[in-house]
Structure formats: structure tokens, C-alpha cells
């Protein structure tokens, strides 16, 4: 516990340092990234130690200020994920911000970065409602400033405003929720009355931060607007604070109800499927990744909904297991989503283009970044050999094990997971191949060069962990969840899962063995015969150009057409005039569906209604005196 508090205090100290000392220096990047790297490394070590043999989680009971903080299993797990991502992001940040450093003074940026990490540690550690909300607001405002780093652009300003309002609304709902579940000294206390209402407030308050479907409008705006390393940190870890909050809320509201489980499950299913459908239609790489965060949050919510419903149905070990799956998927998603944002950031920095349809053939120029992006996209679509598959497998496992007559919800979760998996595979195959493979479309790849060594180091760390959890699930699952709850570790479910994970490693080894055999056979044959290069078969068409390649939108077009009722793309192609063919253009750009059909009209209607009341302040003095007279009369008639 002490190590973790020490590391978070280092972050606070670094933030203060930035404010005062560093404002004079011009090049603050290196020092800051070194400080945050070492601090998060210490924190990571502390969390690992706490998780593996610590386990005591005894609350600190001295009367000092520390009584308001406690470290139990769940917060330790989230701290582990947080520090892991911060380690990678801080290294990555050092190189990523080099270009930006020439343009403007970055100490304000780094100060906010440190405050963000410090406030996230605070959120995870605090046991007192006031402190929790204090750190929550600190997190909200520091991430707001990080999103607004290059506030010159129009869409960044729009994103910033939506993000600010979402945070404000979320904080107020949390105030309402905590008011129901805290004693007079603001410490967490189980809700006395109206727990369903408290649950609703918690869900909305934390949902605005987690970003599942109905409350997600800020996410696809804020993440593309933020610089690469910030959006990696935000979508990797900051969204998970919402998930942590929902879990903490569930532990506070003791008697779970059927309706809660179903709401969380349905929200999970809707946001996972809709998230990936929206992602398919996106052209901008960061928007695509932002929508995928929504999809993965949906998967985590499915796991949590499953956990609640299984608990109510009496499958206690299975419900514990599905909560483990939710936490594992949080860690997995943190790893591969930050990896994706980092590689996307380095691609955008190297090529300067965000639209995937203009990129292509980058793998030749940026081999390592291409490799990391491949690892991450395979992991996010839940393919074997990588960590995405492990957590999705556990969710499948729990739903199949609990398949009895009245547990219909397992069917929904299995279907949702399978559809999301297939769609995610299609989406990331498109993204990876359009960006990295084939021949370069609009981009001039001569100028493109591999990204800095620190950025690659940051990405390497995360891909190492992704492969580690993927290839050796038994080792990592046991290490992470043996301390979760004694009931689970003794149950037969635990043994069966461990056996399965050993089988996983076995199958992977066989697969690699077969792969080696085939490669060896081919090498022997290839060495004898000739190997030569020729242009791709193009039906004998002489002048083939990169433009005839399949772009991202054409790849995803059949699926977008099929799902167009949910997410109608707004295509614009002028009608063909005259008889002779003139040059024509077709452009289709995805619309932020929920924002434009649900939020924008409602806000405009609200403002129109509000402007209706402008007559009250119509400027005529006699009306004002009339108001006093009328209120006087009204009170007399009402009360006397």
C-alpha cells in the first residue's frame, strides 16, 4: 500500500514541478517522461507485489488522513492496469511530443498528464465519497485540458465542449448516487432506501465516463481530438474508471435485483454490437478505434451483467468467474487499445494523414509499427494466441456452463459475443490491410520513416504483455485472480478453467510445431526451385495503378449496406447531367448517429423552449412590478 501511495505522490510532485520549475525550461519532454516512467514502474511493482503475496489488504486504521483510503483486491487490480499503461504511454510520449515541443511550451500538458494519473490513483484508492468525487472531478478537468491541447481546430473545440458537459452531468448524477449511499461523514455506506434509484444514478453517472451506447456521444469526439498518447491513456484506462465505479456501486447496493442484471446485460449487448457497426463505417482511424472502445466496454458490461444474473440464479462460482472475466477483459482492453492508439498515433505522425483510405503500403516503411498494429488488431478481435481470446473464452465458458432452461440470458450473451467477434474481425482486417498492406494510395511513402525508438519501446512493452497473457493464460490467470475470492479458487470450476488453459498452451505449441514443419518443407523446396517476383495478377490490364485497390469503405460496404437501417451513411453524389460522361464524385461520410438523431435535436428543442420564457424578462418595468403584485396575491390566496 505504501509503495502505491508513494508512486502516486511522485506524480503529484511532478505536476507541481511542471507548474513551477519547468516553466522556464524549453525542452521538458525528456525529464517528464523519465519521471513518469520510473514512478509508474515503482507503482507497477508495488501493485504486482500487493497482488501476488500481499493479499492482506488490511485497512489502515491509524487516525491519520489515510483512513479515507483503502486498497482492496479490485482497486489493486485496476492500479496494476493503470501503471502498466502509464509505463508504456510515458515512454511513448517522450518521442511522440518531440514535434509538438518545438511549436509550444509543453509543461502545461505534462502537468495535466501527471494530475490525470494522480487523480486516477486517487479515485481507485479513496473510500470517502467526497474524496472520490474530488479526484473524479480532478480527473475530468485534467483530461479535458489534455483533449484540448491543440485547441485551434474546430472539431477539437466541439469535442471539448461535449466532453465538458458530459463530465458535468456525470458528476451531478454521482452526487445524487453518493448522497443515497453515504453516511453523514461521506464514507461509503450501503444504501438504506431506494437502492434501485441509487443504482440508476450510479449507472448513468459512471456510464457517462465508461461510454456505453446511450451515453457515448463524447467518446468518438474526444479521442480523435486528443493527441496520440493522451487518447491511448484515456481509452485504455480512464474509461475503466467507469467500470470500476459500477463494480464499486454493485458492492455498495447489497441485495442485487434481477432488473439490474438485465439492464447491464442489455446495455452491454447493444453497445457491443452497435459500437462495432458504427466502427465499420468510420474512415478516420482514431474514430474507428474510439467506437471500438465502446464495443469492448459493451463486452465488459455483458460479463458484468452475466455475473449479476448468474449470482441471482445461484451459480455463485460462475458469477465470480464472469466478474473475473470482466476484470481480465478490462486489463486486456487497456493493453491492446492503448497499443492500437499508440500505433495509430505514430502512423498519423509519420504520414500526417488520419483517413485510412489515403494510406497503404506502410508495412514496408514502418515494419515494427505494422507488427504491433497487427498484434493489437488480432487481439481486439479476440483471435487465439492473444489476450483478447482468453477473456472472451471465459465469458463463453460461463454462459455455456450455466445453460439451463430459465437462463435465457446466456444465449443472448453468446450470440452478442459471436456477432461482435466476427464484425470486429472484419473491421480490423480492413483497418490493418488498408493502412499497412497493398501499395500506397495517396500517401507518398518516400518521406515516411519508422517512428522513434522510444515509441516502439512503449509499443513493444504492451505487445509483450498481450502475447504473454495470450500464450500463457494459465500462468497469468492464476497470478491475477488467485486472491480474488477463496470460494472461487476451491471450486471445481476453477480447476476446470485452469485445465483448459493448459490445453490452450498445448494447442498453441502444436500449432507452432506444425507451422515450423510446413515452413521447413517449403524452405527445402524453395531452395531448389526458382523464386522470382512479378507484378500482381490483374487480368492482363496493362497500366494498373494503386487507385484500383480495395479501400476501407469499399471493403466494409456490403456490411454497411446491410446495417444501414441502424447507421444510415450520408452519401453525397451529384446526379449525372447531360449525356456525355463528365467527371463525377461519390463521397460517403459516416454520421454520428446517436448524436445527430437523439442529443442534438433534444438540446435544440430545450433551448427553443427556454427562449419561450424570454418574455418574462421583456424589459418592461411595469411587467416586473406586476410580477411582484401577482406573487403577493398568489401567496395570499394560497396560504391564507
Amino acid at each position, binding site marked *: 500500500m505504501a509503495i502505491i501511495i508513494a508512486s502516486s505522490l511522485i506524480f503529484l510532485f511532478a505536476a507541481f514541478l511542471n507548474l513551477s520549475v519547468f516553466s522556464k525550461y524549453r525542452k521538458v519532454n525528456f525529464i517528464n517522461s523519465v519521471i513518469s516512467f520510473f514512478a509508474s514502474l515503482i507503482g507497477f511493482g508495488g501493485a504486482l507485489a500487493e497482488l501476488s503475496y500481499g493479499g492482506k489488504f488490511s485497512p489502515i486504521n491509524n487516525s491519520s488522513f489515510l483512513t479515507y483510503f483503502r486498497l482492496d483486491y479490485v482497486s489493486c487490480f485496476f492500479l496494476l492496469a493503470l501503471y502498466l499503461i502509464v509505463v508504456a504511454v510515458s515512454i511513448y510520449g517522450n518521442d511522440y511530443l518531440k514535434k509538438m515541443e518545438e511549436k509550444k511550451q509543453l509543461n502545461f500538458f505534462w502537468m495535466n498528464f501527471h494530475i490525470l494519473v494522480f487523480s486516477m490513483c486517487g479515485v481507485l484508492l479513496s473510500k470517502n465519497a*467526497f474524496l472520490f*468525487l*474530488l479526484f*473524479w*472531478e*480532478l480527473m*475530468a*478537468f485534467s483530461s479535458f485540458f489534455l483533449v*484540448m491541447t491543440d*485547441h*485551434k*481546430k*474546430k472539431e477539437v*473545440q466541439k469535442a*471539448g*465542449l461535449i466532453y*465538458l*458537459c458530459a463530465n*458535468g*452531468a456525470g*458528476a*451531478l*448524477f454521482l*452526487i*445524487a448516487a*453518493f*448522497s*443515497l449511499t453515504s453516511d*453523514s*461523514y461521506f464514507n461509503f455506506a450501503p444504501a*438504506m*432506501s*431506494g437502492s434501485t*434509484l441509487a443504482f440508476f444514478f450510479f449507472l448513468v453517472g459512471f456510464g457517462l465516463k465508461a461510454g456505453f451506447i446511450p451515453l457515448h456521444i463524447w467518446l468518438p469526439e474526444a479521442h480523435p481530438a486528443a493527441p496520440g498518447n493522451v487518447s491511448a491513456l484515456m481509452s485504455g484506462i480512464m474509461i475503466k474508471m467507469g467500470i470500476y465505479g459500477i463494480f464499486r456501486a454493485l458492492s455498495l447496493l447489497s441485495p442485487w435485483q434481477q432488473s439490474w442484471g438485465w439492464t447491464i446485460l442489455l446495455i452491454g449487448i447493444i453497445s457491443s454490437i452497435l459500437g462495432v457497426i458504427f466502427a465499420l463505417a468510420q474512415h478516420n482511424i482514431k474514430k474507428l478505434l474510439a467506437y471500438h472502445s465502446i464495443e469492448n466496454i459493451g463486452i465488459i458490461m455483458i460479463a458484468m451483467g452475466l455475473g449479476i444474473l448468474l449470482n441471482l440464479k445461484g451459480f455463485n462460482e460462475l458469477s465470480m468467474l464472469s466478474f473475473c472475466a470482466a476484470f481480465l477483459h478490462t486489463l486486456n482492453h487497456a493493453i491492446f487499445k492503448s497499443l492500437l492508439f499508440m500505433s495509430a498515433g505514430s502512423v498519423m505522425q509519420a504520414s500526417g494523414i488520419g483517413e485510412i483510405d489515403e494510406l497503404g503500403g506502410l508495412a514496408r516503411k514502418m515494419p515494427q509499427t505494422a507488427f504491433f498494429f497487427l498484434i493489437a488488431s488480432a487481439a481486439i478481435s479476440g483471435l487465439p494466441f492473444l489476450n483478447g481470446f482468453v477473456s472472451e473464452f471465459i465469458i463463453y465458458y460461463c454462459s455455456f456452463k450455466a445453460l439451463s432452461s430459465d437462463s435465457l440470458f446466456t444465449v443472448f450473451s453468446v450470440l452478442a459475443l459471436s456477432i461482435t467477434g466476427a464484425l470486429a474481425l472484419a473491421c480490423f482486417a480492413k483497418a490493418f490491410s488498408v493502412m499497412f498492406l497493398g501499395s500506397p494510395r495517396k500517401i507518398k511513402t518516400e518521406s515516411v520513416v519508422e517512428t522513434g525508438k522510444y515509441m516502439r519501446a512503449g509499443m513493444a512493452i504492451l505487445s509483450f504483455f498481450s502475447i504473454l497473457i495470450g500464450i500463457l493464460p494459465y500462468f497469468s490467470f492464476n497470478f491475477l485472480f488467485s486472491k480474488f475470492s477463496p470460494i472461487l479458487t476451491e471450486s471445481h470450476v476453477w480447476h476446470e478453467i485452469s485445465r483448459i488453459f493448459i490445453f490452450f498452451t498445448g494447442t498453441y505449441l502444436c500449432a507452432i510445431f506444425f507451422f515450423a514443419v510446413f515452413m521447413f518443407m517449403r524452405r527445402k523446396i524453395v531452395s531448389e526451385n526458382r523464386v522470382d517476383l512479378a507484378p500482381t495478377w490483374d487480368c492482363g490490364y496493362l497500366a494498373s495503378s494503386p487507385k484500383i485497390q480495395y479501400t476501407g469503405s469499399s471493403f466494409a460496404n456490403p456490411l454497411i449496406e446491410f446495417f444501414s437501417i441502424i447507421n444510415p451513411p450520408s452519401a453525397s453524389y451529384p446526379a449525372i447531367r447531360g449525356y456525355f460522361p463528365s467527371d463525377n464524385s461519390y463521397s460517403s461520410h459516416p454520421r454520428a448517429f446517436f448524436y445527430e438523431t437523439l442529443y442534438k435535436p433534444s438540446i435544440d428543442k*430545450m*433551448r427553443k*423552449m*427556454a*427562449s419561450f*420564457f*424570454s418574455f*418574462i*424578462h421583456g424589459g418592461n*418595468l411595469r*411587467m*416586473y*412590478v406586476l*410580477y*411582484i403584485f*401577482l*406573487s*403577493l396575491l398568489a*401567496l*395570499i390566496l394560497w*396560504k*391564507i
Partner: protein
Amino acid sequence: MISIIDLLRDCSISCFKEFSLFLIIMPIIASIICFLLRSNSQKRSVLFIAGFFHFLVSALLVFPQLYIDNISISNSNSLFISSFSGNVENAVFLMIVSLLFLGASYYVMGYLPMEEKNIRKDEEGFIINDEPETVFSGFMLLFLASMTLVCFSNHMGLLWAAIEATTLFSAPLIYFHRSRKSLEATWKYLVVCSVGIAIALLGTFFLSIAASSSGGSLYISDLYSTNSFNTLWLKLAFIFLFVGYGTKMGLSPMHTWLPDAHSEAPSMVSALLSGALLNCAFLAIWKSHLIVSSAGLESFSSSIMVVFGIFTLFISAVFIINQREYKRALAYSSVENMGLMCLLLGISSIAGYENTKQFIFINAIGHSLIKSGMFFLAGLVFFQYKSKKFSDIESMVEKTPTMSAVWFIGFILLSGAPPSPLFLPKFFLIKAFLSSGNYYTAIFIILAFIIIFGGLGRIFFSTLFGSKETEKDESPQLKKLLIPSQIFFLSSMFVSFLFLWFLRG
């Protein structure tokens, strides 16, 4: 160290009456001096010195009193209260008034010389020349004197006279920039407030009728103790008092003067108006609520206050969302906070008077400090950018970084995020409504707060960020003038943590 405190405590108890008289008369004398002096800088220094001494003496009076709650010296029918023991709220509001006046006088010292140098044009192009300094500083000090009188009065009639005096002395202050709009604002302020105050006078007379069975004396201390009231007259009295002082406090059907007065008055005057004056009016309502509840009609008065409080929240939410001027937005946020305080007082009968009292204090202190800090800032922003509409101001972060930093911190505090003292009353209010079971009002209040946050957010956001390329040009004395707001913001945060320390204790 302990002995000094005891010494201070004894002398503050013994010569309480002398000190209070000094606090009232000293500003009047200072204003007379100002009328006599000629050069403007001398007037401003007199203003500052008076403010400083006023703060010193009131601090001397208030802080030692906090340790001796037990000795209740009966302030029998003397016009002025003889000690703060019975009524702590007077002490708190006195402290707010004197602290704000000190900040405002310091601000005036820096602001007025800047004002003289630049000639500002009205929208229609008329050159705006300012009120003669004598009128300004003179009435400012009289304004201070009347507000101190409000905090010390123990007689309802005297309380009424003091509040009427505050209206009259603040009217010329609003008319400082001699533009057509400020004249219109002054006229509306005068008519609406004096009509409201007249109703309050009628309410005072009804109160004396209600208490006629026990000699009809209007001494607040006596009114607390008498329990033989004619209930019908008491109800009518409370209604008239509530509507009268509610106009002065800015509760919502009667709030119409507030946005005009605040947006047209110079920033230091509007800071004092929204920080100190609204509190004094609230003090009067608080006293009448106490009188009514001591006579057992608590549910009657709190139901009225809850209804008016919620209507005020609704009106301020409706008007903030479409607002186009930042000063008017700040004014409506004052209206919202006053509605919040009225609501808090209203639910004190449900949620127990003792701990709601603490939250009303923290809200009053927090709101006054933050709002006056914001108005000082608004004055500087107006001075720098020459326009009241936030759409004309762009990329403040580039042009004036330090001011925009303080400007955004002010917004965070105003929005009720945890470090700010305004968070705790909101928390308590929602908790009281939710635990007492009326969920719909709770949800309505939450929506109102969200809309207000969104409206303010939109305004502050579009002033801070913009796509115009501007280089940094921040005049040094502008930075010097940021000091009062910075001090006020920091002290408000300190107050919230101090309050939490007490609560935990």
C-alpha cells in the same frame, strides 16, 4: 498565545456595543471625508483604509466570539444586538460583508486609474464619462455602513430601514458608467426594490399586530421568546416579509432587477451587490423564518420557501442556457445560488435545523467569495476585450493566459466541483430530498444543475478557446488586479476543507 486570545475575547465581549457602533459610524465619517477631499487618489486610499479598519474590527469582534457559544448575554430590547452568541448568522454575514468590501476597495485602487485612461464608447457611440469619484466613494462607504447596520440590528423596523438604505445607497453606484443602459438598470433597480421593500414594511407592521397580544414590540430577541402570536396575522406578516425581502434577495418571480443591475454596474459594485447585498436580504428572511418557526408555524414558511426555491432554480436554468452575455450569466448564477439557499432554509425543518445551518453558512461564504472573485475577473475581461457578449471574445487562453487560468478555476469552483465549497450544500440538498422520498423534485433539481453547468460551460468554453491566431499581450497591472480574485478563490477552497475538518470532528 492563549492569553492574547483570552484578552481579545474579554474585550470583545465587554465593549461589543462600542465596537459595533464604531463599525457603523466609521464608514459614514469616511464618506463625509471623501465628499470633502478633492483628488481622486486620496478618495480611493480613504476607501481602502476604511475597508481595512472595518475588516480588522469586525474580525476582532467575530473570531473570539466563536469560542464562547455558551455565554448567552440576553440582548434585551436594545436596538443593536449585544453579542453574536445568540445569532451566529449575523457574525458570518458581517464577516462576508467586510471581507468583500476590503477586496472591492483594493480592486478599486487598481481599476479606477485604468478606467480614467481609456475612453469607452457605448454601443450607440456616445462617449461614456464616469460618475464623479466623490459620489462613487461616498456612496460606497454609505453602502458599507448600511450593510453593517443590517448585520447588527435587533429590531425588525431598524432591519427594514437598513435594507432600504442599502438600496438607496447602491442605486447611484450602479449608475457609475453614465450610459443609457446603466441608467435604465438603475431606474428598474430602484422601482422594483423600493416597491418590494415597501411590502416588507407592511409585513413588519403586520408582525407587530400579530405580536400585539404581548405588547407588539418588534425586538427580534423578544419575538423569539413570545409564543402567543395571532397566527393569522403572523402568516400574513411572513408572506409580506418573504415577498418584500425576496425581491431584494432575487428570488425568482421578483428577480428581474438582478441581471440588469449586475450586467450594467461596474464590476466591483456588482461584486458587492451579489456577494454582500443578497446575503443581507437573506438574513432578513432567515430572521422572519426563525420568528415564524419559534411560533410553531415552521411547515408553513418552509413550504413557501421550497416552492420559491425550486421556481428560482427553474428560472435561472432557463435563462442561463440561452444567455449571450457573461455578466448576465454570472447574475443568473447568483439567482440560482440564492434559490439554493432558500431551498436549504426550506428543508431545514425536514432535515434538522442544526446541520442545515452549517450548510447554509458554507454556501453563503462560498458563493459570495467565488461570485465576487468572478465579477472582479469579469471587469478585467470587459476592460481587456471591450465587449459583454462572449461570442465576441475568442481564444483568451492565447491572449491572456494567467487571466484565463484564473477565469477557468473560477468556473470550476462556480460549477460546484468538489474542491469548491458549493459542492457540499448541493450534496446535502440532494441527499435531503432523496432520503425524504420525494424523488421527482430531486431529479428536477439535478436536471436544473446540469443545465446550469452546461450553460455556464458553453459560455466559459467559447471565451477561452478559439481558432483566431493571437499573440500574448497581457498588461502587468492587469496581473496585479488578479490578486483579489485569486485570494478569494483560494480562501473559498480553504473554507471548504476547513468545514470538512469540522464536520469530521
